[in-house]
């Protein structure tokens, strides 16, 4: 590696040229010092430009998105799960969450809360809801003291099973006077329980909005079942993705530098590619700092869960614990040499997971289907492991095992626990 910079730079080029042209050491030193000065000046100018463009982009974003005053006097108003009323539907409050398990007979779920908000102070309502269908029909309802008899409503967008912030603009004419009640209506059946942690009315000022974006970007993203496929980078729903924001800032900076070079060629001595790559690397580094910070937090969580444990203790410390505990007992009953085991479970996860833990037995667990083969296709000596599977009946008196309407097979019950059992076919 020689002494030349990895980055192209006209000023350093001049210094090199001076040296190459056989200039005196003093002249070469002078040229080198000048190059260093230019480089530092460019670095400062680029940093300042980056900061200015960043501030300008933030300002433009706020100007476009804020529906009301930039610096409102009101504070956010929040209601937790205990203050919510499930007016229609079935559910219960547990662990700081309202868990709604079913709508009412007409298929409507309605959650209400009594409020006293000055409408002009608040421009956003955020229901903290999870577990919704992507196509769920959800609405925000409210009443005011101006027209107490009128029920106002706005549709609520759902993404990744969660409701998004509802921004109320001056066009929404019912948002006047004092808001005396807020409600969330979900139309249609609920395939899985919906959890509601509360509702927040937001003034949506500049600081609050920026704090929200910051929280979204730097929210801890723990490993989950989808992590192997997608890294979201912070909160699941984000108003502005951080990569897009940084890419926009870098692109604008490079655009400004290109324009500046046309009108004021001496504004930057460094070549445009050099500056562009420096900005790109800086933006990439910012994203990488976020990602590394998230990795460090994840590692801490992993250490708390698994550090110092044996492989088996780790399994018992995971979400598999109840299944593993049952499989430990099943393994004690199963022969030590590999046998054929049919695994039956309603959930794909338990079926596949049980199979994995039972290897090297020759395990049959149908992926992505709860369907079981006809018992007639099994042989004497085959085993059937049942874990949270509906539709399997055992006649203890006659030793008959049957499932899904097929003809029964002779079988012997070898192990039973609530929701789980192990049989051997006879």
């Amino acid at each position, binding site marked *: 590696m020689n002494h030349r910079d990895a980055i192209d730079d006209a000023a350093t080029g001049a210094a090199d040229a001076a040296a190459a042209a056989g200039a005196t050491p003093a002249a070469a030193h002078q040229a080198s010092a000048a190059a260093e000065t230019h480089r530092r000046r460019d670095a400062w100018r680029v940093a300042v430009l980056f900061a200015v463009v960043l501030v300008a982009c933030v300002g433009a974003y706020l100007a476009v998105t804020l529906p009301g005053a930039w610096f409102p006097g009101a504070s956010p108003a929040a209601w937790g799960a205990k203050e919510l009323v499930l007016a229609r539907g079935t559910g219960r409050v547990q662990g700081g969450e309202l868990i709604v398990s079913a709508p009412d007979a007409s298929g409507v779920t309605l959650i209400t809360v009594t409020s006293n908000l000055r409408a002009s102070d608040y421009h956003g309502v955020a229901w903290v809801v999870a577990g919704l269908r992507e196509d769920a029909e959800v609405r925000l309802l409210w009443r005011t003291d101006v027209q107490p008899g009128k029920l106002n409503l706005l549709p609520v967008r759902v993404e990744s099973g969660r409701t998004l912030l509802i921004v109320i603009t001056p066009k929404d004419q019912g948002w006047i006077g004092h808001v005396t009640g807020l409600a969330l209506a979900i139309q249609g059946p609920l395939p899985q329980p919906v959890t509601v942690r509360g509702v927040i009315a937001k003034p949506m000022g500049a600081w609050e909005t920026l704090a929200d974006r910051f929280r979204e970007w730097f929210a801890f993203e723990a490993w989950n079942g989808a992590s192997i496929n997608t890294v979201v980078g912070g909160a699941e729903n984000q108003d502005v993705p951080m*990569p897009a924001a*940084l890419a926009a800032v870098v692109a604008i900076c490079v655009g400004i530098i290109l324009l500046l070079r046309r009108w004021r060629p001496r504004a930057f001595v460094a070549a445009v*590619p050099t500056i562009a790559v420096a900005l790109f690397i800086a933006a990439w580094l910012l994203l990488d700092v976020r990602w*590394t910070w998230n990795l460090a937090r*994840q590692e801490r969580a992993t250490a708390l869960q698994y550090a110092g444990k044996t492989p088996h203790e780790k399994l018992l410390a995971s979400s598999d614990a109840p299944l593993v505990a049952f499989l430990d007992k099943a393994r004690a009953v199963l022969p030590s040499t590999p046998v054929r085991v049919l695994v039956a479970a309603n959930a794909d996860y338990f079926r596949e997971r049980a199979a994995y833990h039972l290897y090297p037995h020759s395990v049959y667990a149908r992926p992505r289907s709860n369907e079981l083969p006809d018992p007639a296709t099994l042989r004497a000596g085959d085993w059937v492991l049942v874990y949270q599977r509906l539709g399997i009946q055992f006649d203890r008196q006659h030793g008959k095992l049957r499932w899904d309407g097929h003809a029964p097979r002779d079988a012997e019950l070898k192990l039973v626990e609530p929701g789980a059992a192990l049989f051997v076919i006879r």
Partner: protein
Amino acid sequence: MDIFTLWLGWVLVGACGAAIVALAYARSALIAGEGAPAFVVGCGWFVGQFALTLWMRAQSAVGVPFGVASIGLPLLAVTALTAWLALRRNRGSIVALLRDAPRRFLGAGLVRRQRALWLALVAWIGIRLALLLLEVLRRPLYPWDAWTQWATKARVWFELRRMAPFVPLSDWLAAPAGSVYVDAAPHYPATVPLTQTWSATLLGRWDDALVNLPWWLSGVAFGLALYGCLRQLRFGALAALAGTWLVLSLPILDTHVALAGYADLAMAAYLTLAALSWLRFVQTREWPDLAIACVLSAACVTIKNPGIVWVAMLVPGIVTAWLPRRGRMLAAVAFAVAAAAALVLTETSVTILGYRLQLDYDMPWRGLFDAYLAYANWHLLFYGALAVTALGWRRLLQPEVAPFTIIVAFGVAFLLFGFAFTNARIWVEDQSTVNRATLHLAPLIVVWMMMAFRAWAEGLRNLDSPGDAVAPREGMMPPA
């Protein structure tokens, strides 16, 4: 003690591969070139890993049970023999290479500012790798496919000490008891599970976390090999390290190290190194490059079923490098023929490699936007790729860049075709496959981006000072 054996066993695999690569290149200029130590160790690890799985296949085929000695001793013998032969052939270069490696790792030879940047970047990468290592060593097998279709085989083969066959469900029902096995993907290749089998054999037990050590080692080795390759592509030390960092910092790649158990990381590494080896062979026409390219390409085919398509995607780029004048025309014709054939096939609703072709074009743009530009999967990779395309489009087909451009173009076309015309569309919309499939090509996109950027920057320099007699500087700029 068992974890010591585990590390030792994998060091042996790496050493075996490094010795093979060193022997192959013993009389080549590459061994004395820039980045040689990193390349030999990094690429060697992948060669060694593949050699290990070939040996285990052979051993199982002839009925020798898996064991530390039965697998390790032959590897040790091969390592000793190849290392001895390599030293005999070119003792001077190899000893110098080993002697200089630590100094180079610490940035010796760089000027002060560059050295500070170098060390900062090395430390930053080191922090990343340390976090990933802790995660790999502590977390039991976590992601879904890892324990439904990859480690399933490894676990059985470790317990039985041989490669028992995995068959479809219908065959399982009909087969004699205990003779065959079934999992969610019985047709998937054996290379990746065999690496876990070797880990478990070294440990003497099945450990859900420690069997995944090869994933972390793959990440480290890939970084080394990529650095070496970028140096061979005449990037300066700092630029090559920056390129390596760009790849190793990709969140989706890191996730595939941390949540070990999938084959996509291995696919990405082998494919990238195979492509770079082929292009190097076209340049040097030396048999070691050809041999390494063939080995790595063969590995691609045995890692994942789409590996054969990925290797086929390299062919137009290799032809372009081989025949610079006619190659681009041939690539264009190949592209047109492939596109026409693909469109014809979509009318047949045929299923290829598990993907069902369908003619109703419907590109899931929103899913692609989220995956590539909105979410954190790729940092700024695709913004950079788009910017380089926009800025340097005139130079994308110049001789040095064209092979990379064509490989990336075919790869991207393959991905987009799959997303638009097969059942993979829904896996883009739900973000379940789009990033994993793209991961295979992503490191090559980084290399292409660097090559294209360098060509663009060099072009601008020439425009600014057409008569400039000063030699281009080392680093992002190509040598004269």
